[in-house]
């Protein structure tokens, strides 16, 4: 099983467990009974699914893998949960509270890159810290005190500043220059082509003038110059749009550590 297949398996079965579906597995074939509340998502109350492509066609069970409709629905459900949880940090010498923000970074242009990142902050002094995952005990989840007003926002602002100025700074610049280079290559071709086209048309104009031509033929060339100018403007505008960059650091989850 590839890593993607393992993740699909874990996500899908985890999701069906979470919504209290009845799951019966036999030789890699899964019969899922969907609780009524979720009928409208899956448009049925029973699903027959497999995660192994070899088992799909012979058994008439739907393969759940990237591109499948079931996976698409489950992914969308899970991406929207936006969970906030608490856990215990061991050791926590100063006994101070920490917060971890999870961001899904999406770099979009003619190419796209995504990554799940996190930023840890000490809630007392709002300083960036580093917490090892191995120090987090998820079994301890009690949280009974209040959080002072404004602390969450201060920590969030600190985290996004850290992302932009430190954590992802190099990646942002690398992405920008990668896109810039691709755009430049295309622009150079355009510059060269339109420079030559304009030159060709100017030469035509000069020749016609030298032959004493006037009126319609010259007007035609002037019109053509205008068309080329508009065309070039339009192509440049399209290239700007094509290589526009949108970078989104979407807050997707958070963890409070005590």
């Amino acid at each position: 099983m590839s890593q993607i297949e393992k993740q699909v398996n874990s996500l899908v079965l985890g999701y069906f467990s979470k919504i209290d579906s009845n799951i019966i597995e036999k030789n890699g074939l899964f019969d899922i009974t969907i609780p009524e509340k979720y009928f409208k998502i899956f448009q049925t109350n029973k699903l027959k699914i497999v995660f192994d492509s070899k088992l799909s066609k012979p058994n008439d069970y739907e393969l759940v893998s990237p591109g499948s409709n079931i996976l698409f629905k489950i992914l969308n459900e899970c991406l929207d949960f936006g969970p906030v949880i608490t856990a215990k940090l061991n050791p926590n010498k100063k006994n101070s509270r920490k917060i971890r923000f999870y961001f899904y970074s999406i770099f979009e242009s003619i190419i796209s890159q995504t990554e799940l990142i996190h930023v840890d902050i000490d809630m007392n002094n709002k300083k960036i810290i580093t917490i090892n995952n191995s120090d987090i005990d998820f079994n301890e989840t009690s949280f009974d005190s209040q959080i002072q007003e404004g602390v969450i926002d201060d920590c969030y602002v600190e985290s996004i500043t850290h992302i932009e100025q430190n954590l992802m700074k190099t990646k942002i610049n690398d992405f920008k220059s990668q896109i810039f280079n691709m755009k430049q290559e295309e622009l150079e071709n355009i510059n060269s082509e339109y420079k030559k086209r304009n030159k060709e048309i100017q030469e035509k104009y000069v020749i016609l003038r030298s032959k004493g031509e006037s009126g319609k033929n010259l007007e035609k060339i002037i019109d053509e110059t205008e068309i080329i100018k508009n065309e070039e403007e339009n192509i440049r505008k399209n290239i700007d749009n094509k290589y526009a960059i949108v970078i989104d650091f979407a807050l997707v989850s958070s963890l409070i550590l005590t």
Partner: protein
Amino acid sequence: MSDIIDIKFTDRSKIKTKLRKLQFDNKDTFDLTLTAFQLLSKIKESKLSIVSSIKSNKAIELYDHQIFAAMKVKNEFGGSAILADEVGLGKTMEAGIILKEFLISGLAKSVLILVPPSLVYQWQDELQTKFNLSFAQKDDSDFIDPASHELLIFSHSSATSPRKSKFLKKRNWDMVIVDEAHSMKNSSTLKHQLLKELSRKFTLFLSATPIQNNLSELYNLVELLKPGTFGTLSEFKTRYADDPQMRRINPFFKEELQKKLSKIIIRTTRQQVKKYIKFTDRIAFTKILKPTDDERDLYDKITNKVHKYYDSGYDILYLMVIQRLISSSTESTKQALFKMKKSGLFSNDDYDELMEIANRIKLDTKTSDLVDVIKDDKDSKFLIFTEFHVTQDYLAKVLNENGFSVTLFNGKMNLIERLASVEQFRNETQIMISTSAGGEGQNFQFCHNVVNYDLPWNPMKVEQRVGRVHRIGQKNDVNIYNYAYENTIDAYILQLLYTKIKLFTMTIGHLDLLFEDVTDEKTGVHFFKEYISAKNEQELKNNFSTVGENLKTRKKDLTNAVEEFNQEVFENFSLSPTGETNVSN
């Protein structure tokens, strides 16, 4: 640095609010969310993530060259390419894989597909059944306007209408796909101009014949795909053409041209895939039957009226509909009679007399023959096409009475009904009766008998009918039964066009070139005029003979030109994603 950069920090799930309110979730939810995001990243990074999912779809037969093509476009071509496989190798499938991959990985959100008018339904249905993608098109009941749908299919012609093109040009599309892209080759056309102005990130052109006449067509297509690649047209001509007409390639720069093309074009030939794709033949059975006296009488009497009204300058399109109705079935002839009476073309007496003849015909000669054909091959499925709903209903009744199981398919059905109908035909019934409109939308490789119960007068439409069945994945030779009565317009078209220029066995894909300067309707009008304007039978034969000869010559020239030209450009050079070299036949 790039001019437009937007850095955002979003909180769609309102996590900050949850934190402030101390609303906590459990660890399982947390794990699911993180796994979902990690998985999403892996899907994006993958070379091609959707292969397994597509392979598991029963409605799809996926081939290696299609997977490789999609991988190449995604990972090496930056999402833009000319998909130029030879006809019948599944270019639509390749485009669909790329499209789906780009959609699920988030690389594309808004997609515009431009196709010839007759292929709008086919694309819409295929994307739904094979890729589970719901594209809107302007005839959908829930269609709003071009700006309101993220996934849109438009015909070439409607996209170029002033109002629509304005809408389409206003948006920044992520992906634009153009089927039969060679029709965009002429830089002075509205279609070409529209594409030039459409703002987009990724472009896919589909064409089995990216070059037909000269190298300037190739230049124009590449200019639309990747502007500036070849410099100006005159530079391109000077460097790569060996003659003023640009019909030969300069041998000194051929390799350079091919190298540049290898970063733009993907082309797989039939020769390269014959190891794993079985190409089957078409066997045409032309059934020109002798009608009964009543059938003959009815047809001739109405045709004489049509002649008379044509000579007096009556609306030709109306008369054409009448002539097509009386060529289909007795039931559709009754409809024609009613129409003519309503329009005042028949007196009540004429109408009554002809209706009496029509009512005497209990079973059409064509139907009787068709029943025998199906009885002789009762274990096979038959896809029967007719142009008219009234004929469809009549045939369904007769075939049911003869004990056959029948499914109907037509343009009145919505997408869900159409898909259900196909499933019924696939799994339960022996026969499907489809109107032409319905026939454009689906693939029926599980059936290998096509019946043209009546004949569309446009050869492109006939090709579309046969193409539903005779395509990649068909395991058997395809039988094509063409029905007509002696001395009718359908018989002339069948004999002099299909038999003479062997359209049924012609390499599919060249047909559109053969008829490229006549639009769908005009082709029918052209043939109708030849028929209706003839003063006697000899003149009629001469008229059709001339049309046939002209098309025959044109077909020969075209086949030679396209094949020679493609061979010269692509000869001994691999544009196939599988890495195999093209072999000259």
